[in-house]
């Protein structure tokens, strides 16, 4: 979700002792389900469960730590709302974000939770340049593609980082009239869930466009699933309706 300018080079920022309190407070805000991040907390369980179940089924695993020993990359990690759960499920997590404040916040919170996560300030492309392709069993690309300048080349670069036999999961908003009504007008203007201007309609990416980019890199995308909202229960669930929010898993041949 970050839209800050990328740094010149990938780095793991150090946090001055006097900065810790500030980033700890920011972390507390990220993790407070009643803060401005409330919609992310409502949205999170549904997509996390989908990611867990999809990866566990793909790899034939189960139990408390189904991702044990897997190298996982979380692109656009924000405060670590997905990175931390992935680490708890056993993954060795690397996470990048273009906004330095997000990375510092995530670093402080992971420390507070006793989780070991390799947070880097920078972009996916910088990581690809630094470490080379085929480094990760799992690449998570959640709520990022709608914010980048060139989605096709971004998706192809991300796909190149997936190891053979690995998987990439993309989550974003579809470019449909209904997505405009609910995800932009509804979430930003009616519910006030997101700041106005978070999403621009013409930057949204359709499943077909994701599929084309990933197939060009040798991945096999599956049918997208929807992440839908149940206003009665006030929670999100995985559905067959990919018309607004969708998630799509793509496997790379072994």
């Amino acid at each position, binding site marked *: 979700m970050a839209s800050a300018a990328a740094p010149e080079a990938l780095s793991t920022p150090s946090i001055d002792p006097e900065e810790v309190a500030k980033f700890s407070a920011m972390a507390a805000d990220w993790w407070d*389900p009643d803060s401005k991040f409330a919609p992310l907390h409502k949205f999170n369980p549904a997509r996390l469960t989908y990611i867990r179940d999809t990866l566990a089924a793909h790899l034939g695993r189960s139990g408390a730590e189904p991702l044990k020993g897997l190298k996982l990359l979380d692109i656009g990690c924000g405060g670590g709302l997905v990175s931390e759960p992935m680490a708890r499920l056993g993954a060795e997590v690397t996470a990048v974000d273009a906004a330095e404040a997000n990375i510092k916040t995530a670093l402080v919170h992971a*420390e507070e939770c006793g989780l070991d996560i390799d947070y880097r300030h920078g972009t996916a492309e910088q990581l690809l340049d630094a470490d080379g392709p085929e480094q990760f069993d799992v690449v998570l690309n959640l709520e990022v593609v709608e914010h980048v300048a060139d989605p096709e080349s971004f998706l192809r670069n991300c796909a190149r980082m997936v190891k053979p036999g690995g998987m990439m999961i993309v989550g974003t908003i579809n470019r449909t009239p209904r997505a405009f009504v609910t995800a932009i007008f509804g979430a930003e203007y009616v519910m006030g869930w997101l700041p106005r201007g978070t999403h621009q309609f013409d930057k949204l990416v359709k499943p077909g466009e994701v599929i084309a980019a990933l197939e060009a890199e040798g991945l096999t995308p599956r049918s997208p699933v929807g992440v839908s909202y149940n206003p009665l229960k006030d*929670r999100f669930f995985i559905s067959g309706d990919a018309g607004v929010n969708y998630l799509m898993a793509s496997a790379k041949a072994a």
Partner: protein
Amino acid sequence: MLWSMDSDLIFDGDVVIAGGGLAGLTLSLALHKAGLSVCLVDALPLESRTAPEFDGRASALAYTSWRMLETVGAAQHMDGKVQRIEDILIVDGRPYDGVKPGGPGRDQLHFDRREISPDDDGEPLGWMAENRWTRIALAKAAEEADMPVFAPERISHMGEGKAGRARLHLESGKAIDAQLVVACDGKFSRLREQAGIRTMGREYGQKGVVLNVAHELPHEGVAYEYFMPAGPFAILPLPGNRSSLVWTEKSAAADALKEMDDAHFQEALEARFGDFLGWVKPDSPRWTYPLGLQVSETFIGERLALVGDAARAIHPIAGQGFNLGVRDAAALAETIVEAKRAGLDLGAQASLQPYERWRKTDTAALSLGTDFFNTLFSNDHSSIRLARGVGLSVVDKIPFAREFFMRTAGGATGDLPALLRGERLSL
């Protein structure tokens, strides 16, 4: 005061359950069986809670509660210890002027389980069991499942543990680390108090005198609830020719009943019970429990969740205290297992909020409902008596209303947790 660095850490896992009562045992078994690392702490050895002197109460187990006992592996240890409730008769105790001995009066509400499960061996309206048998069965199931239990261990206080953990300090100097502490430590929960969570509620100035009786004739699985001016008088069937009584009176009268010598009590019992089941005589000591309603302002805190009487204690008028505790346990178990599956921090507010939302609705409805019922029925004003007589008769004439009441009493309304549908949880 104990300092964390001196503590001897005896457990480090997902969840620690403080309190080995019925709700605590049920919850820890459900989580343990789902594959989480969980332990139970209690001040008393589990065996001592199963002595007849410890708790004389019997509870109505709604059929949803029974399903949960089946799912966690406890129901199989209750053979011969539970009584099916086939019918519930709700009776205004004073349809005419004066107590009518010898059974139900005219204005009665009749619930027959054959209306919701017609087969001969269909699910009954509920089960009756003395709490200690349920406790023994749960303790056996815990032993069979190799669930970690630390008892006797007294809890001193809760503090911060290793990163991402709360620490439960025990008076023995030992300590337990877990992402989440669940307070199942009863109506006067110390953990709730230490967390600064306030309660609201009121006392009714009434007490329930509880005892078991033996009687000459079989009860045929019928539960009776008489609404008397001083409060409800319930006859709840136990296995054999025995029943559990919940006899509500103004506090002073209840205390007098408890202290009375056996000959006088026998006289009072016969006058109230009537002779519709032949002779009747006490078959247990007498206990009294004050009636009151107490609800916590919130059910969750910092790495803390409240379950059972720690969350809310209601007077036993509808026999729902245990069932509410089981529903808490089922809802919290499902919430925790979902969070664990998603890799979320089990003690985070975001992970616990669904539990609170889920349970608050149910609690509000039931607390208000029983509060209203008690006020309505503990009243001897003639117009209220007339109205409730008419009300009982009307509900009895409408099959749909009756069925709704039965499903509500059985706990099958609302958004039912998986465990109450008889489904297992797993990672």
